[in-house]
Each structure stands twice: as C-alpha cells, then as structure tokens.
C-alpha cells in the first residue's frame, strides 16, 4: 500500500510545489531550472520523507524525454541557434519539471490528498469518495485488461490486427468499469452518502499553523530566488 510520507498537509505541499513550478515554466535559461531543482530537493526534505532510490529511478527514467529533446536540439539545431546550449536548457527545464512533479507524487498519498480536499476545501464527499473508488479501480483495470486481451485472443483464434485487438479490449474494459462504477455508487448510496448532514472522518488531515508558515516560506523563497535570478540578468523568458 502506498503510505503517505508527508509531514505537511498535502494541499500545502501542492501549493509550494506549484510555486516552484511556475518560474521554471516561464524561463528558458539554464540557471532557473537548476536553482528550482535544488529548491525542490530542499522542499522534499522539509515536507516529508521520500524513498530516494525510487525517486532517482523514476526521475531518471522520465528524464529520457529531456535527453531526447537535448539530442534533437544538438543534432537538428534551429537556424542561427546554438543547438548545444538550447539542448542543455531544454533538458534542464524538463528534468526539473519532472523532478518536482515526481517528488510530489511520491511524497503524498493520493487518498490523503482527496481527504484533505474534502476536509479542508469542502469538496463534496460524494465526489471525494467517487475519486477514492476510481483510484481503487486502477489496479483492477490493469488485471482485467490482461485477462480480457487474453480471452479475446483465444476467442478470435489469435488472428487479427493488434490495434483492433487493443480496441476490442478497451471497449470491454470500459464497459466493465462503467458497470463497476454503478455498483460502487449503489453501495455508497446504501450507506447513506447522500443522506449525511455533518459528516465526520476518523482519519483527519488537518491544516495547522505549521502548514501556513510552510506555505508562506515556500512562497517567500520562490519569489526571493526568482528576483535574484532576475537581478543577475540570467533569466530568459519564454513560454512553452
């Protein structure tokens, strides 16, 4: 089971991660991503405990996209551009975006994020628990898809185009998922999800003064670092 390793409220961590992501999204220089990559690592250390091995492995694998973009720019540079420099910038930018996102995903238990949305941002429990059920169904879908594809392959004697086979499996899987959703919805209704007045939670995710300070600090450090990069003249704006 994916247990949360977060020490802060999942929404607070989300907010600070977004603060760190925005300057990287707006920049097109090699300095800004490096600075915010480092700040992201510091944030991970403050906000919780991440499995370093899993983090490095996931970021490493997903950084393959950045490597591809780097090679693309080096091998096929745009007219009048330094392909190597642009490639390095693109690589750093994409890797920083990946590392910040992966850090958040590994740090925060998705169930805790949904609990926090229901308890701290008044997300309707009807929607919140539907999200719970949806998250639950993901491993079932993986299992079911494997069985469906095998069953269909046997039914059609192993002949046919792979894409058609994939489509067939997807249709069966989706129909099954819709039916499963209906049954879960009925089960939730039977347990009074629509009849509640003041719902309580045995597992609470509270927003504390520490979360507020953490958010302010995250915001302050982000703005400070951004201003320093701006003042140094290293910041290059480019969207996309």
């Amino acid at each position, binding site marked *: *089971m994916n247990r949360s390793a977060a020490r802060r409220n999942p929404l607070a961590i989300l907010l600070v991660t977004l603060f760190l992501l925005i300057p990287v999204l707006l920049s097109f220089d090699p300095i800004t991503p490096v600075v915010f990559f480092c700040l992201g690592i510091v944030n991970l250390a403050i906000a919780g405990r991440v499995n370093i091995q899993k983090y490095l492995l996931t970021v490493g694998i997903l950084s393959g996209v950045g490597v591809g973009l780097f090679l693309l720019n080096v091998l096929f540079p745009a007219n009048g551009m330094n392909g190597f420099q642009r490639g390095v910038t693109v690589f750093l930018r994409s890797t920083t975006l990946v590392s910040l996102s992966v850090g958040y995903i590994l740090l925060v238990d998705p*169930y805790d994020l949904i609990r926090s949305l229901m308890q701290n941002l008044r997300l309707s*429990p009807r929607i919140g*628990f539907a999200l*719970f*059920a949806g998250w*639950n169904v993901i*491993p*079932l879908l993986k299992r*079911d898809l*494997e*069985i*469906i594809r*095998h*069953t*269909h*392959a*046997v*039914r*059609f*004697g*192993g*002949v046919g185009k792979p894409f058609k086979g994939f489509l*067939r499996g997807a*249709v*069966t899987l989706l*129909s*099954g998922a*819709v*039916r*499963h959703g209906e*049954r*879960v*919805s*009925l*089960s*939730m*209704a*039977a*347990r*009074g*999800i629509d*009849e*509640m*007045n*003041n*719902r*309580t*939670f*045995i*597992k*609470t995710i509270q927003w504390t003064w520490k979360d507020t300070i953490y958010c302010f600090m995250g915001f302050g450090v982000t703005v400070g670092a951004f201003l320093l990069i701006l003042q140094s003249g290293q910041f290059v704006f480019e969207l996309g």
Partner: protein
Amino acid sequence: MNPLIRLNQVGFRYRGAKAPILRGVNLIIRRGDRILLRGRSGSGKSSLLLILAGLAPEYVTGEIWGERELGYHRRAVVLQNPEAQVVTPTVEEEVAFALENQGKDPVWIRRRVRQTLEALGIAHLSARHPLSLSGGECQRVSLAAAIAMEPDVLFLDEPTSYLDEDSSQKFFQALELLHPETSLVMVEHRLEAASRVCQKAFRVQEDGSLLESDFTPEQGESGGSYGEIAMAWGRKGDAPAGWKHRLKVGTSKRSKDFKDWTGRVPILTIEGLSHQWPQNGKQPSEMGTVLFHDLHLTVRAGEMVALLGPSGAGKTTLLGKISGRLPIEKGRVFIEGKDIVTISKETFYSLFMLIPQNPEHMFLSETVREELSTVQKSIDRADAQLEMERIAERFGLTHRLEAHPFRLSEGEKRRLNLAVAFQIKRPLYLLDEPTYGLDEHAKILLRKDLQSLTEEGAGVLFVTHDKGFAETTADTVYTLKDGQLIREVKHEPICCPA
C-alpha cells in the same frame, strides 16, 4: 406494533423494459422479522430487495407504483459482489464509512469499529486495503460495516454467491451476531443455511407476484445441497439426461452407463507441470514458493474434468499455464498431441476456448444479438441470422437479444459465454469458476450446456470451488491441494431419484 416496511400492490418496471418485473406485491415486515426472498434467477428478487431498501427507483432507474411505506430509520445493505462495495483504502475506514456519513463522533466510531471487527474475528485486517483481501474476507468486512451501523433492517443480496463453502459458513456464522430486534431481508440460494437464520420465506413468482413460501428446495432452485435437488427431481421424476449416472449417493454398485475413458483420444495432456512464484524483486530464474509440482493430467475427447481446491491452491494458475497466459517453466502441455510451446500462436489459440471467471471479460458488443453474430461472419448472412437465432433459443437468450450483455443476469451472462463458445468449435474448453454468481437453477442449465459440449466430442476442464457442482457435473474430479493433484473417487451409483 407498527410495521417497519409495508408494501401494498407494489409493481416495478425497469426503464426501457416492456413488462414489469414485479406486480401486485404485498408484504409487511415488522421489527425482528427474518425473511428470505427466493425465486429463480432474474425473477425480480434483487429488485424487490432494492425497493425494500429504498434504493429503487431512487438509485436504479425504473417506475414504481402501489403503496410503499418505509418506517425504518437505519438500513444496511450487503450486495453480491464484494469487490464492488469497496470505497476506502483501509478496512477500518470501510467499516466506519456509514457511521461517518451519520455524523457520529470519530472516537465513538473507532471504538465501535474495533468492537465489530473483533466480534467478527477480523480485527487483524483493520489496516489492510479491502481489495487486498480474499473474497470471503472482503464480504465479511461488508457485513461488519452493516452490523456496525446497528441497522433497523439489514438487507443481504446473495451475499455468499461469490464465496466458497468455507467462507459462506463463516459469513452465516457472523449473522448470529445480529441484535434480535434487527430485521433481516435476505436473497439467498443456500436455502438450508438461510433456514437457520430466517423465520419466513417468500417466493417471487414468474409473473412478478410474491407468495409466502417455505424453505423446501424445488426443481431449479435449491439450498445448494445436491441431495436436496435430487430429492426434488426424484419427486417430479424429470431429472435431466445424464443425471442418473452422475448422482453420488454413496453406494458402490456400478451403473451400466458408467463411461470408460481409457479408449478415448486425449485432448489435453499435462506432463510434469510445476509452478513456483518468483521471489520478490528477483529474476524468474531465482524461484520462490512452490505452488504445484510435477502435475500429470489427461482430459479425453468427450470427457468433462473438474478441478477442485481451496483458494490459492493454484487452480487458476494451472489454467493460466494451459491457456498460455502464464509461461511454462517446467513440464509440458499437449493439446491434441501438440506441444503448446512449439506451435504457432494461431494454431495454439485454435485448439481451445477459454471462458474466464468474470463472464463480462469475454463480451465485445452492444447487444446479445451482435455478440452472437460476431461468430457467424464466415457464413452467408441469412444463414448466419438463422444460426444465431437457433443458438439464442438453445441457450434461452431469445427474449434478451436486444439487451446489453452487461445488463444480463449472472446466469444469462454465463449462458451467453457458452453460446458464443458453442458456436466456435474447438476441441478443448477451459472454464474458470463457471458457477460464480449463479443460482442453482442457472447451475443446472450450465450443467446441461457443458454436457452438450462433451456430447459433441469436446474435452472440458473447469476449475471450481463448488464441490457439489463438480461432483454432479464432471466425469472425473481432481483436487489440487498442497501442490499435488488428487483424483477423487467417484462412487458410480445405481440408485437414482427418478
């Protein structure tokens, strides 16, 4: 004493359906009543339960008429499929879910949840994800959630149909924890077990009406005991073909119909098949626990073989290896004399038909008609239509041709699987838990359909937890236990109920 539930001339029709599924239903349920709703698959028992629970037409679209008074304050519902009731990521939260919805104090809820889990003997599961549990454990969690609510009325919709015998017994034992004042409305096909819990039984008739009944099994619907079905058929004298020589009555005298398989052609041959689970985080070559070892099995033309075994014994894994879903590391599997690892994929898949545990996994189309027609593409259009209609009639699906396959009853879904499989002529048929979710009537029809496959010369191998079905249906029964296949001794009878 005021009734908790009162129905007066109630009828119900599902949206889009031509005929009502229930009509003229009168029923009064008082505090402490324990009621069984019985009837054939698709007769409307579950629909009536949903109406009594205030869930239809509120959450199941349809039209209701007549008078319905629901006087209870709290109701709890346990549905058929344990997997489809799981919402939260821990057992503790799952049991607490309804109490949280009621706005109870979290400290009180935790205490109540702990007490309930301890009473049901599943307190050790409290931190587990419900979907990581076995079906039986998961269903007991659903019952714990219902009992924790201290409901006025508990509604149970075939709660043991996905469970093996052992899990079902534990489930019924757990029902003894109900407060004597709690009313119970149960749809259940295990009549013998239900009769120990319920005081009254009502039967939903073919025409949708409701009649007071008893717990006596009748043809096509029984308490799950093979003896009960035998007695019922014996009274009526219309047991289906093949019944006489399949009845196990404990005598040792041999029937003249007894089949000798030794001269038949082997369709499936398994030689020295083994399976070990890989150790966590290691390569498949570094194997871990042995699931089964050096298995030998033969299924001959026209023979039906059942494979029994407790949960986790490796029945489905064995089927996975035969059907190519799992690799064969040690041993050999031959179908029609061909080693399955040496032949092409097309040849391999043309040798057998696989019917998965969940019948929905086989479906492709929007309607039953299309589902049956997909098999007929190679022949002339008019002939295909005739053949499809013939097959639909044979498998009792004519009245459901325009229905979506996912909307059929569990029995009808399984029959649609078999209808498709029947059209695709293959030498070997493999079925994974074919009786899951089926009532006794549907099982009898399934038995006849499987027999028609073997009568055409095919070999059939099915894995099941349903010992009664295996013993009454298969020609040869094996049990997979502790990694070994044990052939069950069948007592070939002369004594028949007819």
